[in-house]
């Protein structure tokens, strides 16, 4: 039993979907459990931080960490797992690129706290009470993790060997990664463990996309009916498939929802949002500033659209003035 390679799973600023994706391995999870020892998995197993701390440095073969890094606790755990592990894998869009929590990089911490604890329509908080980082009661001090001003990707905090993309990653990618770890045939450090080709490659609607697409308007799915037979981009819906790694099986598009880019860019692109922006705007069917702007009204939130999963990992990382 102790001969089996040790694996740790941990979550940081994330929704729990990545944990679900591990469970989604279904019967394959038995194969995983047969072949590895899971030494930390807060969602599924009752190991504590001190158990891992007690292990020698480098004794874990791989740690799969999901979630972005926003709190001191997350950093602390990430650093600790880094020390204990031979390989760290950023698991899922949040760890790789910042993910949905990364959209918070458009706002200052104060703005967010104020909204969440005071201004949100569902909040009644007349005393404007905020959580305290340190609280003394009966002579005992309770500490909450500190919140940073900036949401970070995992590799902006610790060194990361590999990335498994997705929100969440597909079980297939996880299984392949585990097999690669077990076999010892690992790709070069820095590799994203997913096909290095864009999503259209595996999209069933690909053939319906015309070769002379021009955007006369941009549409949003809650306002317009989607033709399930046709390429979503060709209908004016901002499907990020062309700018997004494949590997998910085009799940969203098959469900008639545009790809929102959770698998991140291919290895040849440094900033997924900028590249997608470049691609779609090039085909806007207007030549004057006025006419172009009229069409761009259909993209009311460029940052949220193009960097839904990738703001902290993008070139600009965070709103410049906050």
């Amino acid at each position: 039993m102790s001969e089996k390679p040790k694996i740790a799973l941990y979550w940081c600023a994330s929704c729990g979907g990545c944990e679900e994706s591990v469970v989604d391995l279904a019967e394959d999870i038995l194969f995983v459990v047969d072949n590895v020892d899971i030494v930390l998995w807060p969602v599924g197993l009752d190991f504590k931080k001190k158990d891992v701390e007690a292990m020698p440095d480098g004794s874990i073969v791989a740690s799969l960490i999901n979630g972005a890094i926003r709190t001191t606790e997350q950093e602390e755990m990430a650093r600790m797992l880094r020390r204990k592990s031979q390989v760290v894998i950023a698991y899922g869009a949040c760890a790789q690129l910042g993910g949905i929590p990364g959209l918070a990089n458009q706002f200052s911490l104060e703005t967010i706290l104020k909204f969440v604890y005071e201004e949100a329509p569902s909040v009644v908080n007349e005393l404007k009470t905020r959580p305290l980082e340190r609280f003394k009661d009966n002579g005992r001090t309770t500490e909450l993790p500190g919140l940073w001003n900036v949401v970070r990707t995992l590799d902006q905090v610790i060194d990361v060997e590999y990335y498994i993309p997705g929100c969440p990653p597909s079980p297939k990618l996880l299984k392949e990664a585990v097999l690669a770890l077990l076999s010892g045939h690992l790709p070069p450090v820095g590799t994203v463990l997913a096909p290095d080709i864009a999503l259209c490659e595996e999209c069933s609607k690909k053939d319906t996309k015309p070769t002379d697409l021009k955007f006369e308007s941009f549409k949003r799915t809650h306002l317009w009916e989607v033709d399930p037979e046709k390429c979503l981009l060709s209908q004016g819906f901002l499907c990020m498939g062309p700018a997004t790694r494949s590997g998910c099986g085009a799940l969203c598009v098959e469900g008639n929802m545009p790809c929102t880019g959770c698998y991140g860019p291919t290895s040849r692109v440094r900033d997924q949002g900028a590249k997608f922006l470049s691609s779609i705007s090039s085909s806007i069917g207007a030549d004057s500033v006025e006419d172009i702007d009229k069409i761009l009204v259909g993209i009311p939130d460029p940052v949220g659209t193009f960097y839904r999963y990738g703001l902290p990992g993008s070139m600009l990382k965070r709103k410049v003035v906050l």
Partner: protein
Amino acid sequence: MPNHNTEKQWTPKIVAFFCNWCTYTAADLAGVSRIKHAPNIRVIRVMCSGRVDPQFLLDAFAKGADGVLIGGCHPGDCHYIEGNYKCLRRFQLLQKMTTDMGIEPDRLRLEWISASEGDKVRVVVNDMVSKVTKLGPLGLPDKFKSWDEEMKIFEHSIEEKEVFEHV
């Protein structure tokens, strides 16, 4: 203008992407005509403003440019027929995005300067330098560094704590 008798003051750094056929040539013409202008721009030559990938512009900002200027052929005059229109469309969307990201619109500029408009190079560069000078440094590399200061503070406290626990 910087004065070499005093301490070196901040002056903006502007990265420019000039198309080979119009604006780059216009900047050459400004040179041949000795049309003096502010020394703050650094020109990167591309064949067409259509080659300007928004990634280049964001990367320039991220690496420390205070402003980014794109120069292309006038509408209808593109050496490659319509590359400049593609550039314009990207520019309109990108500027909307960078503005949302807190980068003032004046820091990102698109100008049509034809091969014969050497003097327009002077006018545009001087105007942009004066506008960006008023805005002050964008200084993203420094900002990135200062954002990460918060991590260093915790880095120490984490280490200390661990030392304490080991004892």
